[in-house]
């Protein structure tokens, strides 16, 4: 195993970088889309149950199936990977953002409007900052999930550590099969832990001291 890692050191690092890059970019995209959707949905009360249903049902779609559906449309490579990872990452963020935004007391919003804040000011300076800790929790859940989904996305020849796992699986019984699978899996776990720690830090620095738990 040590020999295995030694021989492929540069490749492993490069793939880890690719994997993280895919996850982080998809996560950013997912967050922007999900928060925007949540703002839309919470402004129109009738849409809220729809959003909750979508995020619940969406998570039950097997990622392989989604990938299979996407491949004929967008072809193989990075694009389907980003789409699939973003899709799954968006769901927990959407759900938490809806909950977080709904959790902002109506009386507080009214008090802010009563001071003369415009609708946009209330959104940026009151609703989003107050919902932020809940949204960040959603982002952390998404990040963990995205790490796993990104591994599966490697099936579509997307970048990252997932390729190692697939190589391992296709070569079962071969000389390095176990090493491939193990290094791929452990690598993803380590990356996931690092990313989570970074997100915890980010959450601390971006949440007002006045509402920090």
């Amino acid at each position: 195993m040590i020999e295995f890692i030694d021989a492929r050191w540069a490749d492993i690092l490069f793939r880890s970088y690719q994997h993280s890059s895919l996850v982080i970019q998809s996560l950013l995209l997912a967050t922007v889309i999900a928060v925007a959707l949540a703002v839309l949905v919470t402004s129109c009360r009738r849409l809220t149950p729809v959003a909750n249903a979508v995020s619940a049902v969406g998570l039950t779609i097997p990622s392989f199936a989604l990938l299979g559906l996407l491949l004929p449309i967008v072809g193989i490579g990075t694009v389907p990977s980003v789409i699939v990872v973003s899709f799954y990452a968006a769901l927990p963020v959407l759900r938490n953002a809806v909950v977080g935004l709904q959790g902002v007391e109506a009386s507080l919003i009214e008090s802010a409007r009563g001071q003369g804040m415009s609708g946009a000011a209330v959104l940026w300076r009151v609703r989003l900052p107050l919902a932020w800790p809940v949204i960040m929790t959603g982002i952390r859940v998404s990040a963990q999930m995205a790490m796993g989904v990104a591994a599966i996305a490697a099936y579509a020849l997307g970048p990252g550590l997932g390729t190692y796992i697939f190589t391992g699986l296709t070569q079962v019984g071969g000389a390095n099969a176990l090493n491939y699978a193990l290094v791929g899996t452990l690598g993803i776990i380590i990356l996931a832990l690092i990313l989570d720690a970074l997100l915890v830090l980010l959450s601390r620095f971006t949440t007002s001291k006045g509402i920090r738990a």
Partner: protein
Amino acid sequence: MNQTTATAPDGSGAQLELVDVVKKYPGQSRPAVDGLSLTVPAGQTVMFVGPSGCGKTTSLKMINRLIEPTSGQILIDGEDITGQDATQLRRSIGYVIQGGGLLPHMSVAENIGLVPGLLGWDKARTKGRVEELLEMVGLDPAVYRDRFPRELSGGQQQRVGVARGLAADPPVILMDEPFGAVDPITRQRLQDELMSIQEELQKTIVCVTHDIDEAIKLGDQILILREGAEIAQYGAPEEILAAPADDFVADFIGSGSKLKQLSLLRVGDLPLSQPQTCRVGESVDEVVRRVEAAGERSVVILDAQNRPKEYLFLRSLKRHQTVPVFSHELQTVVDQRSTLSDALDAMLVSSHGGAMVTGGSRGDYLGVISYDTVTEHIRTLQTQTGQIRAVPSAGWEAS
């Protein structure tokens, strides 16, 4: 802004006029506010009272257009506000709600500086204003400026809420049960502070309350409403207490209306007694000698700023070498603008049958109001038939 001229002082109140204002919520058969017409003179405080659900909050929120009137006109200084941009309008109307309504993720300074910020004041001016307002509501800026709302007591949050409402020096201030969420002693303090602030600023204040005593104490005018925001009576507290328009009003002001006259009288209207005083840090032996020479058994302790700190019997003081520093909150201190009923409350917890009286914005010690002075005064009131007119109502008989 401290100087008040004979005419309206700078940044003072504006006349507020409601003309046949109606609010009908969708799906309701009867309007919540059914043709309310009302004029509030500039610089006066009008208190809205009435049973729950009679339309007080609805009427109030139509003034800053958090609720849009179904019909009617609302005029501030003669200008109809119903056509103005609502967001801009609200920046020129102070709004204070129960509990303060502070934004929990913003510091005290950010909360107070909210409206000045929206109005585009520069940072230095906003900062100066925040300090000034914190001082005004009795919070030390150095201590409280950077705190978050959750790090404040309920009373302190409410103070910040009042400061925020005053921040941009609006001519009209709306308050919805501002002191409804704090304990009675804090409430009384906050009322006293609001009165001294209002004495200086002369804003036009519309304040909703559930508490008729608060209305009598704070209001230049009281508006008593019934269902549908129909006016039952509108007038000065003295008028309403002396001559309730009908049984509804009489019931509403309650059977204790003779005692309620106590809410009209200020501590400063009565003579204060001047017991012996001493300073923190003085030698106890000396103080005891002096007080005993004057034939008294207790002494008022003042700090270096001339604020009362404690009212002690000599025997308790004798345990110390020098007069110690007392830092606990005193419940037996009232402002000279407090009402006699507040003073009676304070006396109940005093072991001396009297409450210490302070005046001015820094709470300087003035003297002591004694229980005997108050009861004596009530007795003379009762014999002066001219002062309290008999009122033919069920409630009156009961007292």
